[in-house]
């Protein structure tokens, strides 16, 4: 339990909605529109917090607890991820805690959705859970590969140690893990090609459908939690892909923040240029990502017996 800096957590909490704004703005620009202001997500969150909430009579405490627990879990997970500086909380094995905190958040979102008793939520919940189940091996095995390469099981020790020398020494496995993590990033956050975040058709919704019945502060919690999740996965990916360690806190954090913005722009570009995959093709994509992670792990295991 080594104490780190509080900066990664603060950056995450503060800048996460900006990421969403950048993605939406990129999509608008690609579509030829001006688009909403970059800081619009903050305004949306503020607006939602000021509203009241209406709860259906068919729901129970689960429905009310879902968004809250979900947000809490993601905030705690944010304390585990390094970003230019070691994370606030770090210990060996914290990568597992990270993955399972996110799983907890997802679980509560899903059961809150099921609690409403509506069939649309049920459909979305089953899809969401299936895709997450398939994406989890890719994520865990990819993290395991990085752990094996850097020789430690703590996120704060792993990611800063992925330096340029490590990349030069064993580029292929790390490249494969980066691709796998990119696919996981797109899948877990409900981005195209896995899910369309801007769809209005209930039959095509996966993530959106679980937010359908929430309103007011609950919806704000869910949206903010989603933005934080986006930031966290992006931080993992940038931590792997950007082997810059100058030692200066602000320089590292600044470089990474720039990387995150680039990632957001890239996501926006991908969303503008690709269509969503057919639902039956998504498992193939996720299994493919899992296979890439497995391949990377096998390569790393082989070269360091």
């Amino acid at each position, binding site marked *: 339990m080594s104490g780190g800096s509080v900066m990664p957590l603060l950056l995450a909490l503060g800048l996460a909605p900006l990421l969403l704004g950048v993605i939406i703005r990129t999509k608008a620009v690609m579509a030829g529109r001006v688009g909403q202001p970059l800081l619009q997500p903050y305004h949306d969150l503020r607006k939602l917090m000021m509203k009241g909430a209406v709860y259906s009579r068919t729901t129970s405490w689960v429905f009310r607890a879902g968004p809250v627990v979900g947000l809490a879990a993601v905030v705690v997970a944010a304390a585990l991820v390094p970003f230019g500086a070691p994370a606030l909380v770090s210990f060996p094995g914290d990568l597992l805690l990270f993955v399972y905190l996110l799983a907890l958040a997802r679980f509560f979102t899903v059961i809150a959705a099921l609690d409403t008793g509506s069939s649309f939520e049920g459909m979305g919940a089953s899809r969401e859970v299936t895709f997450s189940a398939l994406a989890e091996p890719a994520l865990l095995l990819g993290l395991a590969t990085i752990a094996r390469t850097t020789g430690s099981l703590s996120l704060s020790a792993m990611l800063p140690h992925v330096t340029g020398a490590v990349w030069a020494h064993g580029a292929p496995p790390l490249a494969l893990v980066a691709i796998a993590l990119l696919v996981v990033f797109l899948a877990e956050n409900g981005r195209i090609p896995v899910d369309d975040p801007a769809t209005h058709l209930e039959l095509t919704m996966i993530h959106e459908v679980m937010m359908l019945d929430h309103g007011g502060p609950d919806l704000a919690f869910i949206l903010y939690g989603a933005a934080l999740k986006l930031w966290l996965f992006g931080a993992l990916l940038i931590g792997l892909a950007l082997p810059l360690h100058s030692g200066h806190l602000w320089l590292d954090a600044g470089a990474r923040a720039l990387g995150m913005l680039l990632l957001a722009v890239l996501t926006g570009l991908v969303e503008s240029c690709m269509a969503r995959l057919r639902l039956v093709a998504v498992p193939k994509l996720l299994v493919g990502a899992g*296979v890439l992670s*497995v*391949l990377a792990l096998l390569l790393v295991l082989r070269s360091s017996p």
Partner: protein
Amino acid sequence: MSGWADTVLICIVLTSFVLLGSSRLGACIRVVALQGVLLGFLTLAGRQDASSLRAPILALVSTGLKGVVFPWLLFRALRDADVRREVEPFVGYSLSLLIGTAFLAGSLWLAGRLPLPNPTMSPLVVPVALFTMLVGLFLIVSRRKALTQVLGYLVLENAIYAFGVGLVEGTPMVVELGVLLDLFVAVFVMGIAVFHINREFDHIDADQLRTLRDWAG
């Protein structure tokens, strides 16, 4: 040189996985062509004698054959056959990918048990060749269309060629050229056979070729 060879070998592994998961015949043909081109690179990466022309000539011939001629022959057969350009497997795509992963783990383990002589190129050659061989055999067995069986056979030959390139330096060029010639004629004849199968049966499903049989039913 080992770094280059490693990257090429990992790309070959990736192409094999793409073949396992791809559902479009046209994409499969292109991926097998890409595999052949990658093997050409491997030939270049593995040559011992930098001054002899043997390796570049072989690389050129094999790349030309596998990257250009074979896809052309197969696409022609595909176009003449005019069937649905979907692979139609017996074993689903996700399951194929998982089985491919098992093959990969198995070949890495098996290659660790084989005592290699002087490793000429890279320690990854034997496992990658074994894995690609298993993928080729799997494709022949688990895919319905005759054209995919031809592709599986090509992948098998690619794997064995990779073995040859990785382990053996002394084969005379004539023999290697003879092997390539055989391969060319084989693909040519198989392409013609596929065309005839389609003309005869109106499809190219090899599993429908079940008339000649001694077990009833």
